[in-house]
């Protein structure tokens, strides 16, 4: 984190530059089944983020040497469109997206019953079309929706959410300005049913109390987002329907 700035990120009334309270999420909208060609797909608008995810598989893993004899491999690919950020991003993977793809793949693997599909690959493509901070947690959230849409058996949906610190205040779900000029960011993903933490990263400068406050804030909000995910899936598949 880290550039210093003269911008005041929390006003005298304790409100943030976009008018939110410290523990308030940005508006979130979700939709499933947006890529007809894929086995499962979803779209999320989260604040200014617009992210689409599609799932292909389980399908035979290629090249063959990547196959695991006792489980499926989960290959998430986090990719930012060149036009998704203010200054054009050079297309293709950079070091950041390689790392994010890795931690997202690992987090999704923990949720999927991979042992049911030996020698296969489950490919999860996450395309960030418009970025506004928190893309990895929005990305993993929309990816888990796409996996559910593909009918892939999972222990639970994986819900991402971040918290951090700006102007000395622990806040939920940082926006772009807060991310650029804030003091810390703690992206997490959990499986809300059990509270298991599947993704956890942190950068910045936090005391133990601040860090635990931030984590608790993110985990509480994840439960809220979880309900939205369930509602979105029920909207497509019906609540009492046992078909799927």
């Amino acid at each position, binding site marked *: 984190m880290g550039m210093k700035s003269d911008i005041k990120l929390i006003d005298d009334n304790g409100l943030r530059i976009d008018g939110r309270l410290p523990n308030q999420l940005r508006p979130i909208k979700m939709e499933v089944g947006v890529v007809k060609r894929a086995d499962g797909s979803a779209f999320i608008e989260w604040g200014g983020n617009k992210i689409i995810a599609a799932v292909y598989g389980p399908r035979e893993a290629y090249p063959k040497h990547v196959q695991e004899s006792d489980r499926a491999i989960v290959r998430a690919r986090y990719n930012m469109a060149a036009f998704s950020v203010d200054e054009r991003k050079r297309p293709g993977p950079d070091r950041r997206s390689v*790392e994010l793809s890795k931690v997202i793949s690992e987090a999704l693997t923990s949720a999927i019953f991979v042992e049911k599909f030996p020698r296969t690959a489950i490919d999860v493509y996450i395309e960030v079309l418009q970025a506004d901070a928190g893309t990895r947690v929005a990305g993993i959230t929309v990816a888990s929706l796409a996996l559910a849409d593909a009918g892939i058996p999972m222990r639970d949906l994986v819900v991402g959410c971040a918290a951090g610190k700006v102007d000395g205040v622990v806040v939920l779900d940082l926006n772009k300005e807060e991310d650029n000029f804030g003091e810390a960011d703690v992206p997490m993903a959990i499986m809300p049913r059990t509270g298991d933490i599947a993704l956890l990263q942190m*950068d910045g400068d936090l005391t133990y109390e601040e860090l635990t406050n931030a984590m608790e804030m993110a985990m509480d909000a994840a439960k809220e987002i979880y309900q939205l995910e369930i509602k979105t899936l029920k909207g497509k598949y019906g609540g009492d329907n046992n078909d799927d």
Partner: protein
Amino acid sequence: MTTKFSEGVVAESKRSYIHKLAKEGMRIDGRDFDETRPIKITTGFIKRADGSALVELGDTKVLVGVKIEPGEPFPDTPNLGIMTTNVELVPLASPTFEPGPPSEEAIELARVVDRGIRESHTIDMEKLVIEEGEKVWVVFIDMHILDYHGNLFDACGIAALAALNDATVPAERFGFGEDFKLPVVHYPVPVTFAKIGEWIVADPNLDEESIASARLTVTTNEEGKINAMQKGLFGTFSYDEVKKVINRSLSIGKKVRSIILGGENGEEN
């Protein structure tokens, strides 16, 4: 890092043994759960580098060299120096490392070490300006793995800090006045934990790492602040486990820090 190929097979046969030991509070190499392997640090190992450290963490061996050269500042930070971090998992260090462009493991490793140093503001970047907006010092931290026996995150983090602390800005060589010691003002130390069954051990060795379900690295500084975290692998942690790991990292990190600083600037425990 990767647990594929031959190491995976060996790991499978050791899994039950390591689990059985853990149940009794023991580890395969006789350490306590919070005990790191012996740490040996040799600074100034590479004379051609502006700072260097060879670190042995048990049998894991890494060499970090720091090179410092003048360069252009980033447009949005005209009054700050620059640092970059890179790791090479050279095939000499392990049968599982392959030549070629950096693997995702190498990239993650470099970025986690980078985050600890960057976010703790280890280097006073404002002191690395030669001419504002035109020329600043660029600090290259290059990490070379020489022998891989588990837990590269901590070995690299320790070696990077020791090498930075050893570094001199070579101003004379480039005609910018007198050499000066690289201004290192914070001391972040990563401590990595591996989850084995329901047990969580610090500084996993290769055997432990190869059967771990989840990994968590927590980087803390000398003020007791947390600067970076990174969870890895396919398993999960509960929130209680994470809180305990952070606390354990704070106390283990303190001990490791005093070893890195050789007692000079280190906290006395």
